[in-house]
């Protein structure tokens, strides 16, 4: 059990490390060094940067030194919470990102809950009532869920809600609440707006999970112990839920580790279509404007968030599945 946690923790650290390198590469990639870009940006907006200041900045970020030294200096500053300054907004990156990171997390977690909440009962139902009308209907919906990229789904839903109800469905807050300080009213407003984007985001993953759950449960239902349980006179509900469902849950739970990165990823593009105040639109804008500190930081934070989320889901998996808990002992 300790071995499992350690292994997963190491893997998480490795991933974060790799993501940090990639984020730094992203910051570095545009032609010229970023102090040049920074100075150009500042002078185009009217303010002057003296040669001494530029030299200071260069020294601060170790420009002109080998890649690993620059990376090291950047990392050292990150660890102390200094992510640099956004060139476009002229404010510290952390300030620009603000609540957006938490809203991204909230959206992804809600989508995860929706995925579980829908996939589990539908998967069980489809397996138990195999080849019934509802099974076929769910399979069809599932295939559409897989085939329609979630940003397309968001577009189509936006269009039809506009045509039928004349209202826009975008955003996470109503107009008057968007800038209001946090309070119960704002939380309630958020709760009202959250379900639609969460469901749109969740549909693709749900469709896949339903199919996995259905296939796993079908395998389990054919096993002799199910016949034994039934012959023993157990009620149908207990026969199914008590043993086969628990056994079928295992690969289902291990898939969650890949579901979370998928959802975080998807939230970027869905947010852009629906105009949600998550880090998604900010990232794309930053990349287009080559505001590299902001972009790199967002990629890094999303990566860290994903790794932490995945680690937590691993712990959940361990809690659900005794085989993993005892495997290592």
């Amino acid at each position, binding site marked *: 059990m300790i071995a499992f946690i350690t292994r997963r923790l190491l*893997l998480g650290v*490795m991933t974060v490390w790799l993501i940090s390198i*990639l984020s730094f590469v*992203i910051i570095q990639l545009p032609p010229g060094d970023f102090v040049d870009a920074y100075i150009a940006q500042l002078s185009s907006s009217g303010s002057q940067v003296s040669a001494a200041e530029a030299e200071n900045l260069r020294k601060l970020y170790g420009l002109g030194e080998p890649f690993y030294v620059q990376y090291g200096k950047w990392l050292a500053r990150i660890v102390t919470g200094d992510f640099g300054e956004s060139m476009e907004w002229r404010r510290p990156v952390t300030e620009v990102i603000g609540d957006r990171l938490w809203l991204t997390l909230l959206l992804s977690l809600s989508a995860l809950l929706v995925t579980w909440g829908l996939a589990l009962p539908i998967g069980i139902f489809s397996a138990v009532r195999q080849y019934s009308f509802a099974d076929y209907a769910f399979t069809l919906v599932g295939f559409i869920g897989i*085939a329609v990229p979630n940003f397309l789904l968001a*577009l189509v839903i936006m269009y039809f809600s506009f045509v039928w109800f004349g209202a*826009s469905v975008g955003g996470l807050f109503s107009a008057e609440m968007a800038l209001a300080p946090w309070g119960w009213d704002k939380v309630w407003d958020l709760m009202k707006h959250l379900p639609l984007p969460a469901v749109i985001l969740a549909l693709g993953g749900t469709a896949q999970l339903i199919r996995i759950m259905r296939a796993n449960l079908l395998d389990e239902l054919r096993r002799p112990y199910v016949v034994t349980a039934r012959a023993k006179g157990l009620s149908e509900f207990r026969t199914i839920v008590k043993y086969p469902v628990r056994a079928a849950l295992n690969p289902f739970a291990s898939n969650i580790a890949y579901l979370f990165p998928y959802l975080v990823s998807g939230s970027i593009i869905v947010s852009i279509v629906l105009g949600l105040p998550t880090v998604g639109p900010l990232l*794309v804008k930053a*990349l*287009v404007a080559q505001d590299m500190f902001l972009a790199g930081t967002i990629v890094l934070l999303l990566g860290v968030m994903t790794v932490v989320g995945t680690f937590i889901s691993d712990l959940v998996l361990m809690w659900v599945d005794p085989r993993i808990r005892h495997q290592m002992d």
Partner: protein
Amino acid sequence: MAQIDSEKYAVATQLQLTWWRFRRHRLAMVSMVLLFACYLLAAFADFLATTDPHATDARTSYIAPQGIHLFDDDGSLRPHVYGIKGVRDMKTFKLIYTIDPSRKVYIEFFGQGYEYDLFGLIPTRVHLMTLKDAERGDGIYLLGTDLLGRDLWSRLMVATRVSLTIGLVGVTISLFLGVLLGGISAVYGGIVDTVIQRTIEVIRSMPTIPLWLGLAAALPNDWSVLQIYFAITIIISLLAWTDLARVVRGKFLALKEEDFVMAAELAGASQGRIIFRHMLPSFASHIIAAVSLALPAMIISETSLSFLGLGLRPPAISWGILLQDAQNIQTLALAPWLLISAIPVVVVILAFNFLGDGLRDAADPYG
């Protein structure tokens, strides 16, 4: 299996068995034919286009789709469309161009249109349909036009070619990486296997879209359309080979224990011969299935990136770029036909999924 007699069944090759089994999967068969048709369409994209997909004209901005009228007034078969006319909007005094049903423009088959290279090789001007005696702004506009007055049908044809081939190129790269690394992982085992497997796990637990976006945004602005095309393909494949590598490794490890591999080893076959002559044929169908399931993911990736404006860039045309025009609700309310580009995306992805499912079922002909 009734129509195939048992003797034929017993001596059939792996490929024949797979094919017989695959044929029974109706949906997969239909999907295969459909996809074949799509690739055929893509090969003749310019021939099927009716107007130059890059040509802009302020007069033809947001013309609604119009069908082809087959019969003339006297009942004779003379396919035609209507011309366009300018109407002064009395509120804004702007000149607005709309369809003018009083003026017919006849369609000519195999007529001369804009110049293009058939299959990228043969310069020609022949198109399936062109207009005879057209005035400026007249067009067939089967799917309407966009803001800049470009014909959506012609653009969709060219976009289909780009998006479908980007999937193929990307999958080829992923397949190469996947088979190579998956194979190495399985054959050598030990520390090499551990390193490759951990790398796969690390890549799989990263949120892909932000990384793609970051890497794609860093591509230099002065690159040509073709360079960007290949760079995007490589970026997508670099994160997409992991599934294929897992399939290859799993199959390799399973087959290693099979009796026929042991037999070949005892007969003194070289390792290369065992891998390519004995093992590869028996999991080739699994790889094909994995590839056909990886293709739609590739296509979605390209579409998403281009949709966000960080994938292929205009003047390139792909499904993502077409959908980019349909991004905001104001535009959609004005020109809902822009959303038509979403239909081929969904149909092709669905077809690839069915095909992949059919192939996966057929890949185990003895199962």
